[in-house]
């Protein structure tokens, strides 16, 4: 077994899609129209409406944002760290929205299927 990618289907980023999101905690990806991941994020305990508000706020930072996908989880921190590590293993760099990590290390994990 290896690190697990976020494999849920992409959804269109529109008002109806955002309004239908659950208020739970979890992790998500914001993507462009081609499915390129622009940012990985999480809805933590301080988010006003969980995934609904966190996805809307993060998407607003990216002009090319067109899609999103998410996963409900209480372990949002460790799942977020895992998704960053898997993304780095797959692509050799982080999504543009996560590039500024300061001196925080990203974990090194075997990429799925490798």
């Amino acid at each position, binding site marked *: *077994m290896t*690190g697990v990618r976020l494999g849920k289907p992409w959804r269109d980023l529109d008002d109806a899609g955002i309004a239908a999101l659950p208020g739970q905690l979890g992790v998500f990806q914001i993507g462009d129209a081609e499915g390129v991941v622009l940012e990985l994020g999480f809805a933590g*305990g*301080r988010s006003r409406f969980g995934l609904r508000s966190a996805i809307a706020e993060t998407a607003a930072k990216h002009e090319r944002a067109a899609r999103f996908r998410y996963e409900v989880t*209480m*372990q*949002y921190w*460790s799942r977020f760290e895992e998704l960053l*590590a898997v993304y780095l293993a797959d692509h050799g760099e982080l999504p543009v929205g996560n590039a500024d990590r300061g001196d925080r290390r990203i974990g090194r*994990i075997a990429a799925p299927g490798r």
Partner: protein
Amino acid sequence: MDFELTAEQRLILETVRRFVHEEIVPLEADLDPDASELPPHHRERLVAMTKELGFYGLDIPEEYGGPGIDLVTRTLMAFEMAQHRAGLYAPCYGVFGGAGLAQLYEADDDQKERYLHPVLRGEKRGFFALTEPSGGSDPARAIRTTAVRDGDDWIVDGEKTFISGADKADFGIVFARTDPELGRKGITCFLVDTDMPGFRVRRIIHTLRSTHYAAELEFNRVRVPGRNVLGEVNQGFAIANDRLSRNRIPYAAGCIGVALKAQEMAIAYAKARKTFGDYLSTRQAVQWMIVDNEIDLRTGRALTLEAAARADAGKPFRTEAAICKLVASEGASRVVDRSMQIHGGYGMTKDLPLERWYRELRIRRVGEGPNEIQRLIVARDVIGGSFH
């Protein structure tokens, strides 16, 4: 045993208490409730403060630059340092510095130069890898990872699980079987660099702790040079065992620290919250919960200090360390559970730290040796005999 505080201890504890109250707790208002790290600028500022106070690197031996504070005082400080939301697993978010991996103090000069000193300077990170899928409570028998001599090197094969920090580390302290005929005397400790071919972090293991996770590791014919054997060949278990006993004292102290805060919160809430026309604190059902909390706290605190005092005095402390670990982890779990009950619905929310402590304390009854193993240690010491 006399635990009357000295004037110096009182001053130290008052300083730490004020530090937690004035510097740490206010920052948590803006952090995610499960956060275990501070933003870098706050971390740098607070590390500078603890260095100025002379408290940085508390657990580092004095000859390596630590402040030379005895274990009883460090235990008393640990009670204080844990009294905030992240306090159980990230007391004061690490701004008092860590000791690194204690086994490295037993390394030879070359190994200290390559591993210990970079760790103390904050340049390298390590992990401790003992537990395997075949078990963690009985490592002497459960270890199936092997190391076979090949010229001057060793070839390490096997897997480890529930290992913290491995995915972000530069090296690990890894235990492997080097003589299958010798049981616990056939285990050797190796320093394994994470960039050695054949080392792989296979997956992350998510747990009740949201911010910290464990990892599963794979060693596929990892070639480790002979100069990376830590200690003597076939004497690795003694290194692991000493570390396990010593760690149980601060482990217990952290449990007591968050439980002290939970009790303080429960009392304050009981004195402020009215039901049926009177305060919760006037209800005998609530009073007894608070009294039971107090008994758990005082018992755990006294036993933890007793273990620390014996260690300071150079006396055997394995039994005391086992007892304080199990009493503190079980008692603190009860204290937080009762405090949540007193808080009602609010106690379940992420608005308060109680739910985080409740989750994290559950791990404390398993981590650093499950409490059943602590009971086995005590049984062996007071009754005699072995684990068979």
